[in-house]
């Protein structure tokens, strides 16, 4: 009861003091506003970046692994891996036959070629040769129309499935399904169109790709050195087991004796998210440190003004002490004042950051949101900044000698 009365009185005094010195309060608060704005803006940006990356990485499929010649991310010396043997298309049926934890296996080869109709064309589209299993052996993606069948795949039929970007470019105002287009000069009939994926890795998604049966690919473009074998695991929890299984099959295909290191790589999207996570962690830590400095400067501003405020109100402190205010009461009064200034600054900074984030979102389609945790942390941080920077001035006020304070003019 007593504490609450004191708290209420402290709040009243704080608001009166802030209103009484509007200009000063605004300038002081500015430091905290900028500090909190910078910190929350930074944190939100990092958070948005991570979220966007995760979304994009999902395009690789959370349950899909890519058996390839090289790792996506490596700290190994390039000289150690550059002489690895090429992947072969023949590995795919072996994996499909021997592996028990996989639902689909699809070999994939890619090259760039011109895609065109009589009216429109696109240079350097990613032409992808694969089997009918491709759609099962990648992240589930919706197709308007259909993927090519096993017969079409095995028979090397001139059919294709195109990505959304290709469809938009080559068939701007028409339904592409059933239409004919030329891939590297050879005619293909469009069977289906992939739904748009977007994201940061546009060129790795289906958007700018043309999928053709692997036998058509071979007869039109020849054999290709860089083969990827897409595999999809049956159950995500058994991802690691599946990886071990694939590793065993690959090692026997490559006739690697025990003790020899793998000369192939099994990649998955989590490698990307982990690597990117480490990267954003470092960027975030540096960013928060730098923006934190501005908050620190803001805190020093508060401390400075609180010292001025305490000196200016020496007489008032004397009066309050004369009529019975205890040290704790005075201490609390000034702590509350500093905390209130910082809280107001923090809330304004938060609001500004929120507005900027919304503006950025509508301008660049970032999809960044300010997480509740950041809102909560920002409020706590401004409160803590207020209390720490207010403590020294408040302590000076609290231990003033009432006689001296009353005499002060």
């Amino acid at each position, binding site marked *: 009861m007593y504490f609450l009365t004191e708290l209420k009185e402290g709040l009243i005094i704080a608001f009166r003091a802030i209103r*009484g010195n509007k200009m000063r309060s605004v300038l002081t608060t500015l430091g905290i506003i900028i500090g909190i704005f910078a910190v929350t803006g930074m944190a939100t940006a990092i958070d948005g970046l991570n979220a966007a990356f995760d979304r994009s990485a999902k395009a690789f499929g959370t349950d899909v692994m890519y058996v390839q010649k090289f790792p996506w991310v490596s700290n190994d010396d390039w000289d150690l891996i550059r002489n690895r043997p090429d992947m072969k298309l023949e590995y795919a049926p072996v994996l499909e036959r021997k592996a028990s934890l996989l639902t689909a296996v699809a070999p994939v080869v890619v090259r760039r070629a011109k895609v065109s109709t009589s009216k429109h064309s696109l240079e350097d589209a990613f032409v992808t040769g694969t089997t009918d299993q491709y759609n099962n052996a990648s992240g589930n993606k919706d197709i308007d129309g259909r993927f090519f069948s096993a017969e079409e795949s095995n028979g090397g039929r001139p059919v294709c499935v195109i990505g959304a970007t290709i469809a938009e470019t080559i068939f701007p105002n028409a339904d592409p399904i059933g239409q004919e287009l030329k891939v590297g000069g050879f005619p293909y009939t469009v069977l289906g169109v992939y739904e748009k994926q977007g994201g940061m890795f546009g060129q790795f998604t289906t958007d700018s790709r043309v999928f053709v049966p692997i036998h058509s690919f071979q007869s039109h473009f020849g054999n290709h050195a860089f083969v990827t074998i897409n595999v999809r695991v049956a159950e995500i929890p058994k991802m690691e087991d599946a990886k071990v299984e694939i590793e065993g099959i690959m090692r026997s295909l490559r006739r690697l004796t025990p003790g020899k290191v793998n000369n192939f790589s099994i990649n998955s999207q989590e490698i990307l998210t982990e690597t990117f996570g480490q990267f954003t962690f470092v960027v975030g830590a540096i960013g928060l440190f730098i923006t934190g400095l501005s908050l620190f400067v803001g805190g020093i501003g508060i401390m400075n003004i609180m010292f001025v405020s305490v000196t200016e109100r020496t007489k008032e402190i004397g009066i309050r002490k004369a*009529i*019975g205010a205890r040290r*704790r009461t005075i201490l609390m009064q000034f702590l509350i004042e500093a905390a209130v200034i910082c809280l107001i600054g923090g809330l304004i900074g938060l609001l500004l950051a929120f507005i900027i984030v919304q503006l950025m979102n509508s301008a660049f389609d970032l999809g960044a949101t300010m997480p509740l945790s950041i809102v909560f942390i920002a409020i706590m941080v401004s409160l803590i900044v207020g209390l720490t920077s207010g403590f020294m001035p408040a302590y000076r006020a609290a231990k003033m000698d009432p*006689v001296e304070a009353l005499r002060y003019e």
Partner: protein
Amino acid sequence: MDNAVVINIQQIKKMYDMGGAEEVHALRGVNVEIRKNEYVAIMGPSGSGKSTLMNIIGCLDTPTSGLYEFNGVNVSEMNDNQLAKIRNKEIGFVFQTFNLLARSDSLHNVELPLIYGGIPAAERKRLATEALEQVGLGERIHHKPNELSGGQRQRVAIARALVNKPSILLADEPTGNLDSKTGDEIMNLFAELHNKGNTVILVTHEEYIAEHAHRIIRVRDGLVASDEVVARVKIPAVAAAV
């Protein structure tokens, strides 16, 4: 019981260390005893130690040596918080410059000692309004100090001093910043409060102000120079040490 001793000061000394070997002896062994419902004036020229004595009586300061009993309780060795409590509950200060909080209205100024005393809000408002009515300012409880005349401000200050029903009213040159007519009104208010049973201690260097009191203690060079009862009223004689 009517004449219970409120203030008992024995051989109070106060020294100020001015740095180095220099020491100022503001009080050099003062004895004062003040009983309930007395009306005492403490007089003395500046530098006499009168202000120091007032600060010690008001529990704003503690003596270097000697005994100070307030209502029979030794306060000369109390710490800051204990003194704050005595100031809050037992002493009502009235200052020359009123010392009201400029940003607060009359009511809030008078409520302040009650807030520090931990009185609940409703009770606080009732007591503060009562105190303001007692000094004739019932109509101006929501005026701020700058909307009041000097005399009215001093009345607010007196209401603030009275609101916790303290054992003593301690007034330091209460008319020093007022014209003589307003000053007289304030002195009449003190007389009225004294008649209602309050103990009033007046610190002044003005002879005609001191004459309102029933007993005059003169301080000179850190010692009590004289302590006499003014003839008009019968008050038990108090031994005065010189």
